């Protein structure tokens, strides 16, 4: 192998991982363990999990491309990719996940002032602070800009009153980045919104988990009653928060990456690894190696083919990116198609299981039956969160197809 800076870096990563990565974590599928989300309330599964985070954070490799002065690794994108590849090759889980690394961190790097960066970024890198996102409100879902949570100036503080909803894991988080209304009389509803950082331990902040149809509680309601937040926690200009939120929401690359990651995570679960055809043969029967029921057979093939066409489209985007071409219009379809495909797959699995898919808990249903049913119920959130399918279709119609408002 010719010696190049890239190869040298790869060698360095390899030998460091071989020497340092805890043996107990190697070969563990990332889907089998929850990622480490960090924060004050975080309970590590094992001492090795904690040590792994500390070791990686020590090198700045929890946030490989962030500047070293903020606790990052200072790596180039190319080096970060090599690091990711080597982690995968060693079958090592990421040391840390969460909104700090993927959302507020990049936002502060772009829009934050020096004080904010120095205060918050190192804690994110070390996994000391867990962040959640306060965007949606009971009265502001798809129409996010109509949000009503008020922030009223009081000297060098803002007094915040209002409610956020669908705040993921707010009950586990230490800080929240939120959109609040600082000027209710602004010319448009987008103006007068401010992007602000709030310590969840501030007096007047409370959270309540929301129980979903699947039985899970991944989201909370978060209430603010006369919460005092120092002015220095405003990111960017007062009244210019919408621009920041949009940059964060519409950051196409990270959105794409998130979705690709989500898809690869969902394909790792047992429910998606089980082939539909095997399940159908098992539950419906087979004749000469074929699924007995022609209609089900056609449906199974339909879903498999849709999945294949979808993954080819993702590949097309990646290949184009690697060839140095800008992302094409096909990237806009990923959220809507990927989530609907996942739902259709879940629906078909439930239908194939038949009455065995009706179990909530208890006798008569095995673990697989129950998990399949819960997966179907959970899948209903996919076309709602992060922009409903209808909003996605609006975006395609406007930005890609150029249709008028």
């Amino acid at each position, binding site marked *: 192998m010719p010696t190049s800076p890239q190869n040298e870096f790869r060698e360095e990563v390899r030998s460091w991982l071989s020497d340092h990565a805890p043996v107990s974590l190697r070969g563990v599928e990332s889907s089998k363990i929850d990622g480490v989300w960090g924060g004050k309330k975080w309970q590590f599964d094992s001492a090795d999990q904690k040590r792994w985070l500390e070791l990686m954070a020590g090198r700045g490799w929890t946030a490989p491309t962030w500047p070293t002065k903020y606790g990052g690794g200072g790596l180039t994108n190319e080096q970060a990719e090599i690091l990711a590849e080597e982690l995968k090759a060693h079958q090592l889980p990421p040391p840390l996940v969460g909104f700090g690394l993927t959302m507020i961190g990049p936002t502060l790097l772009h829009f934050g002032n020096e004080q904010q960066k120095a205060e918050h970024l190192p804690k994110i890198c070390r996994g000391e602070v867990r962040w959640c996102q306060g965007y949606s409100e009971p009265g502001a879902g798809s129409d996010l800009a109509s949000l009503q949570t008020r922030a009223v100036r009081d000297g060098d503080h803002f007094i915040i009153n209002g409610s956020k909803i669908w705040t993921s894991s707010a009950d586990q988080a230490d800080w929240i980045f939120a959109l609040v209304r600082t000027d209710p009389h602004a010319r448009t509803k987008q103006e007068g919104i401010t992007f602000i950082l709030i310590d969840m331990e501030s007096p007047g902040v409370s959270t309540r988990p929301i129980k979903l149809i699947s039985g899970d509680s991944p989201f909370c309601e978060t209430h603010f009653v006369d919460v005092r937040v120092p002015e220095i926690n405003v990111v960017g200009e007062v009244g210019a928060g919408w621009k920041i939120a949009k940059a964060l929401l519409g950051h196409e690359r990270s959105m794409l990456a998130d979705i690709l990651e989500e898809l690869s995570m969902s394909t790792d679960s047992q429910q998606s690894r089980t082939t539909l055809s095997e399940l159908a043969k098992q539950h419906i029967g087979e004749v000469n*190696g074929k699924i007995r029921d022609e209609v089900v057979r056609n449906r*199974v093939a*339909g879903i498999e083919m849709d999945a294949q*066409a979808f993954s080819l489209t993702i590949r097309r985007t990646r290949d184009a990116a690697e060839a140095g071409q800008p992302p094409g219009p096909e990237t806009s379809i990923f959220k809507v198609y990927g989530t609907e495909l996942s739902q259709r797959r879940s629906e078909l699995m439930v239908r194939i299981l038949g009455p065995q898919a009706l179990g909530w808990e208890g006798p008569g249903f095995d673990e697989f039956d129950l998990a399949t049913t819960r997966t179907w119920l959970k899948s209903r959130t996919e076309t709602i969160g992060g922009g409903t399918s209808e909003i996605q279709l609006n975006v*395609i119609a406007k930005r890609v197809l150029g249709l008028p408002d």
Partner: protein
Amino acid sequence: MALVLNDEQALIAKTATDFTRDRSPVSRFRDLRDRDEPLGFSRSLYGEMAALGWPGIPFDEEFDGAGLGLTELVLVVEALGRTLAPEPFIGCVGLAGSALALSKDNEHNDVWLKGICRGSKVVALAHQEVPSRYDCLKVETSAKAQEDGFVLNGRKMQVLDAVGADAFIVPAREAGEIPHKDPGLGMSLFLIEAGTPGMTVERQVRIDHRNSAILHLDNVRCEAFQIVGRKGEGAKVLEQALEHATVILCAEMLGGMSEAFSLTLDYMKGREQFGVPIGSFQALKHRAARVFIEIELARSSVMAAARAVDQKSEEAPKLVSLAKARCSDAYILTTNEAVQIFAGMGVTDECDIGLYMKRARASELTFGDADFHRARWATLSGY
């Protein structure tokens, strides 16, 4: 092979798109149809396309081809599909050309594949019969052995590019009836020149007004040298040729749906009702966005199928079925939605959308529709 065009491929696509827009707008196809031109295409324009090297793109340089692959040919055929250019790329280049190339029969190829590459010869492959539907092995045409050759009897339906063709490749078998266990057994491909006694070409008029005919074979005498490839081993060549032609047809469909969609979007932006462009209505926006999604997925599938065939990948048969299933569903969806959005205008003969809708249906029901290819995918996947 990456699912992205390199510079050379992008240039091929651009040349083809410029040429068809300039020399073959939809009005040319409409004119051919209105004149009830039996050939259905223009031999002189086809000659110009041949001068650009298009028919020979996937074939060996030894036979005056370009030595490229379907990956490149689909770019040209997509451009043809955009303007409904009816030149014989599906039947002659796709079916007959592929069958000749796959047979590796140099004696025939020196004349006929060369002729196809140069655009000087049109050859049709007559595989479809009344009972065969989409199963190319259901061939009842018989080739009874005689002392110095064979006598063929049978009838072939909807033979593409048959009217005015210079020669026909005819699948037939000595036994006459279809062997139950191995339906491909004993099939040979006979190359028969136009004008051979006993063979008549009866033009068929279809909804898409493409060149199509019934081929009647009444005691047609053939000699042994007229067999393309090896005697009794035609089934494999035919099946593979059909896969190649299917990918080429998919490319045409991709072009057709892309253009029909683009016409629809233009209409949505220009047509006003209730004082606003109809494209501002969410009910129509969402339908347009869904059509867009289906076209993007179809495009990825066609690119992947063409590359898989070129690389002789094991996945090729499945990817060909994927492409045809998607293109069939997407082209029908696109043109059905287009007619609905064009509304009253959409159902008039004057509006081009109807031409695309009819071609969409004809393409869907050629070489297997989406249901057929989903079942084929299932079989190939072992369920």
